[in-house]
């Protein structure tokens, strides 16, 4: 009896944790399940009949696939710009002393603490009053804006964790400033930059609220889902959702495996 109660005392926490993880994964399982569903009607969300059609013809509703492609384009552009801008800022913040540092820190911090709704509506107010037509490019501008801060934080963490003596050692070994940057600093910070870029892409790809206020008539994937929720969701949406999950999971697993292999060799 005491053994059972001790076992329980030891495990109950893990049990609760697994239940919570179950709660987090339940919708994913449902999305994956519904991707094999042939719904009884356009507005039904219940499982009806098993089919592989959705996976065979994911672009049966062509406007959905257009939206996905558009989201990828926007995500790619926003990621490139935000990663470059954010990385430069991170370098300035970690590697240099200058006046106005705290002001810059506030400017970087605030977008992460401001509700998306406020950022979305304020950009809308700006674009409307400046007479800028909203569409693809205003979405890119908005996405770069909210991604930059996250890039700065991610790269900054990596840079700050880097021993600056490595750069001194390189200079001591006849590497000029530029060579030191190219041969030592950049390769060591690159994992941080890649992580920042992936984060930026996923933030951009998944954003709905800010996009919704600045899209004009342009339709991204989240906007398509939003609109379709009123008219009836094509089951292919679940195919895209499942595929996104699988791709991201593969990326994470690949990077963990690489990390583990590097560790095993050390």
């Amino acid at each position, binding site marked *: 009896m005491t053994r059972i109660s001790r076992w329980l005392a030891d495990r109950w926490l893990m049990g609760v944790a697994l239940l919570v993880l179950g709660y987090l994964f339940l919708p994913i399982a449902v999305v994956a399940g519904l991707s094999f569903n042939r719904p009884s009607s356009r507005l039904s969300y219940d499982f009806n009949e098993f089919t592989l059609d959705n996976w065979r013809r994911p672009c049966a509703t062509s406007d959905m696939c257009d939206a996905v492609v558009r989201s990828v384009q926007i995500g790619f552009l926003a990621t490139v710009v935000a990663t470059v801008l954010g990385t430069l800022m991170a370098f300035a913040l970690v590697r240099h002393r200058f006046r106005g540092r705290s002001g810059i820190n506030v400017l970087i911090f605030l977008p992460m603490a401001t509700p998306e709704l406020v950022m979305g509506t304020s950009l809308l107010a700006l674009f409307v009053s400046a007479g800028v037509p909203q569409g693809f490019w205003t979405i890119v501008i908005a996405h770069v804006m909210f991604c930059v801060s996250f890039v700065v934080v991610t790269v900054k963490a990596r840079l700050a964790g880097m021993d600056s*003596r*490595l750069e001194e*050692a390189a*200079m*001591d070994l006849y*590497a000029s400033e530029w*060579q030191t940057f190219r041969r030592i600093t950049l390769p*060591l910070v690159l994992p941080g930059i890649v992580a920042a870029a992936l984060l930026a892409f996923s933030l951009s790809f998944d954003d709905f609220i800010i996009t919704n206020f600045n899209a004009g008539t342009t339709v991204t994937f989240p906007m398509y889902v939003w609109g379709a929720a009123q008219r009836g969701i094509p089951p292919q949406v679940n195919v895209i959702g499942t595929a996104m999950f699988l791709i991201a999971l593969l990326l994470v697993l690949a990077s963990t495996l690489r990390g583990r292999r590097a560790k095993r060799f*050390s």
Partner: protein
Amino acid sequence: MTAMGHDAPAGDLRLANLTKRFGIFTAVDDLSLTIPQGSFFALLGASGCGKTTTLRMIAGLEAPTSGQVLLGDRDIARLRPYKRPVNTVFQSYALFPHLDIFENVAFGLRRRGIRKVGDQVERMLSLVQLDGYGRRRPAQLSGGQQQRVALARALINHPQVLLLDEPLGALDLKLRRQMQIELKRIQTEVGITFVHVTHDQEEAMTMADTVAVMNAGRIEQLGAPADIYEFPATAFVANFLGQSNLLAAEAAGPAGGEVPVTAHGGRYSVPVGRSRIDHGPVYLGVRPEKLHLVGSADQVPAGHQHVTGVVTDASYVGVSTQYLLRTGWGSELSVFVANSGAAGPLPVGTQAVAYWDPRHAFLLPREPGQDDRTTPVLDEPVGAAS
């Protein structure tokens, strides 16, 4: 390998009035010294004494506030680090984690545009006994191996001066001893000037031809390890390099080749040649191992001087027993007695007499009003018979 150092032009390393200030803090204060070419030079001091800053100024990682760094006749103080014929073995090594051992060692050669590096790298790796380790990553090596890579990475460039910043600080005691001998062997083999920064007095004495003891940005004393140890110049050196019993005394000028002093009512003398100062407030210093213990004053040999006291502590440390002897005026002298088997241990509480040969004592300047400085400094001793 011995040919290595010779392709560099001869030249001593001279620091002339070198000063470095950080804000109001003066890290290095008007430092001038000459390090002869090919010597093994140690900068010894506690942390914050300015030794690492001095090293960084020689390397070019820190710009001096004023003064010169001369290599031969050339002032290199304003050159970028990568323009100097000087290389550094960094504290905790700073090996490039993303490059393998081969590329770490080849780094300097490649930056200078040398294409064929294979032979040189292999030779260097065998000099530091790491043959076959070229394709490993730094993280896969032990501390001692990493240390040798750091050394090889610097030496392969045939610098005129090699700087070592606490290079053995991260190693355990046994490995450190081993590497000390190794470093000395390599230095003799390549004949490059080594400037070694350390806070470990034993390390400095074991390895260096010349030791400079630094304190508060200045050099307190410079010389061969034995000379500094046997005849320190200041109270700081006397207690930083080893341990000393320093008794507050008054001297009244030399008399017949000796300087007579009075300390705590007793009369002693020190040869003139062992006196840094011969009148006024002085410290009468004797190293603990130069003191001998006997039971009573009549056992003291002729020509020796003595102090009477009570044994308050006896620590057996294997090769010797370290006693604390509480004197009549309350100071505690350290006495190291070699465990040669000649005498049995003295129990705590025994009356004892410590005596020494005056030729082993020394006189140092003392600020008026300063009391005895015996080590280790203790508060009120526990259980001492008074």
